[in-house]
């Protein structure tokens, strides 16, 4: 029983991490038809930003208490700025060429991890976290690491915030309408391009937060982390149905749980394969993903 509880919590934590990357990816894809290959790089930037600040390089920030919150805030802000720069400098000039937009983000996705590994070395760096988040707590007889709870809480907050933003605000309305029919929104005289930058900023912000909390989850940061998480985020986006935030949330939970349970009950590493097999099986039954949205 305690094993199942632990696996469930770990799977949910991993799912939360996937959701943080996949939600931004899904929104950007839904609105702009751009598969952002640099999204993993944004996550890495957030992770390294937080690591850099929490290692005592930023005045006031540190590995514990309010200092750590400041470090996470700093990392998230850096990721958001990077996302806006990415949109303005790389993606926007290719506005009329969606395929080239994807290719350009591929280039950024190659360059940024290489740069990070050039500056801080290719090996994993220990991630400084507060004492309070490195312990465990008892739940139904299992010792669950506290950071899983932090990740789940962050993902729930992001999900609620995104739903409120999309459902209740004017900007959210434009984004949702843009996801449905970009041409119509443009025809109504609304500058969809401003919505693009906004969505990129949101996506980058959430991904960078995912990077900061991912450092907590894995206990380390390394340049390749973002790219490897990105691939599972792709699986989540396809499984959940593209452009749907709720679909991404459901799929992230399913993928995270399947991966953890398969890793534990079969050979280690088979969980990653199980996820892809699950994706293949789902595509055979429902090519449009769980929510049935158009790919």
């Amino acid at each position, binding site marked *: 029983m305690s094993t199942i509880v632990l696996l469930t919590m770990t799977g949910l934590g991993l799912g939360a991490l996937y959701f943080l990357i996949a939600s931004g990816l899904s929104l950007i*894809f839904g609105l702009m*038809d751009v*598969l952002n290959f640099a999204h993993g790089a944004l996550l890495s930037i957030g992770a390294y930003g937080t690591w850099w600040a929490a290692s005592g390089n930023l005045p006031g920030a540190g590995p514990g208490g309010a200092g750590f919150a400041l470090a996470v805030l700093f990392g998230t802000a850096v990721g958001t700025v990077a996302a806006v720069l990415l949109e303005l400098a*790389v993606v926007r*000039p*290719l506005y009329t*060429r969606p*395929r*080239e937009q*994807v*290719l*350009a983000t*591929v*280039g*950024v*996705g*190659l*360059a*940024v*991890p*290489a*740069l990070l*590994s*050039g*500056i801080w070395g290719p090996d994993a760096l220990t991630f400084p976290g507060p004492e309070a988040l490195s312990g465990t707590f008892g739940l139904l007889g299992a010792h669950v690491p506290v950071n899983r709870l932090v990740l789940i809480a962050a993902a729930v907050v992001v999900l609620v915030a995104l739903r409120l933003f999309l459902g209740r605000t004017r900007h959210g309305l434009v984004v949702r309408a843009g996801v449905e029919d970009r041409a119509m929104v443009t025809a109504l005289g609304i500058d969809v391009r401003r919505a693009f930058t906004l969505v990129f900023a949101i996506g980058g912000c959430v991904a960078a937060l995912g990077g900061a909390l991912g450092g907590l989850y894995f206990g380390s940061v390394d340049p390749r982390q973002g*790219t490897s998480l990105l*691939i599972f985020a*792709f*699986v989540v*986006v*396809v499984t959940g149905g*593209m452009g749907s935030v709720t679909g991404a949330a459901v799929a992230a939970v399913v993928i995270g749980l399947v991966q953890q349970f398969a890793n534990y009950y079969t*050979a*280690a*590493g088979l969980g*990653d*394969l199980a*996820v*892809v*097999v699950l*994706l*293949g099986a789902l*595509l*055979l039954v429902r*090519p449009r993903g769980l929510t049935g949205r158009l*790919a």
Partner: protein
Amino acid sequence: MSTATETHDRTDGPPVTGPPRPAAATPARVLRWWPAAALLALAVAPFSALPLPGLLDGPVGSPGSLQLLATCLLFGALATGYDLLLGRTGLLSFGHALYFAAGSYATNMFLLEAGLPFALAAVLGLCFGTALALVLGSVSLRVTGIGFSMVTLAFAQAGSILVSRNPGGLTGGEEGRAAPAGLLPSGLVGIDNTANLYWIALAYLVLTLGVVHWAVRSPTGRVWEGIKENERRVEVLGLKPYGFKLTAFVLAGALAAVGGLVHLLLTGGSTPQTTTSDFTLSLLVMVVLGGSGTRWGPMVGGILYTWADHRLGDLAGSGAVADLPAVLRVPLSQPLFLLGVLFVAVVHLLPGGLTRLPARLGAGRRATANTSVEGRSS
């Protein structure tokens, strides 16, 4: 899109039979023979002692240079095969490395574990790679557009994980596995026989160019072009795009599997680097750099990229870079950073890739000439 189509027709359509423009007639006739001349030059390269300082470390015929040239030709061919999907059918696959690695690893497994003779192992390895492309292609093509890209990437990643986990000691994990020298034909092993491997790589390039050229001009190739331009229109014409796309996918996968086989011989083993997503992305860089959807572009891109990759590696480790201040040294010491930035630059500044550059420059000059003529007449 329309300009791309025009250029496409000019490079790939049947030879123009009408009266050619008088001024260009003689050079055009000579130019038509350049592939044959290039092929001849490449075929006799192992006999040449010509030094190419800056381009190659030793004379052309030395084993080191031949190894690099063979790698360049191999990747030129691989990129050409990959463009069958990207440039000809409009399928952005991120999982092409999987079929390349499958050809290499499967052949190696049949040699190492089953002890089969090389020819049989090669045929079985090729069949395995093709069958894998058929199975995974039929699943991933159930999603269209970018979803297809993501699914192919996921499958390739699963393959990469499988290889690195070293199931049953079969793949050798991060180390890869060396091919058994004793089971390979003796003419394909050792530094003395680099020329033979070079010719094999050249043959693979010629094969790929031939197959792609033939396939693109076949009726199926016409449908691929239609799918690339507008898939809905092909459906409306009563054709099912799925089968045509799967054909392209399996053909490209089979060509990649042959490439994996050549790579196995050339490097003497299977390495897990060939399974990574970075490897597929570098194929993508090659194709876009050279010019997607053109006859020679992917080949040119593949050769240039591979050569630059080796040279950038040397540059990164050279003393000149180590002496630079940190702001310059850190980015310059990362070949992937340079390639990534180069790629973004090519996408932005060079739509259509290197092979369309002369046409673009020519068009620019003609446009300038036309304006000046108009200016005079008015």
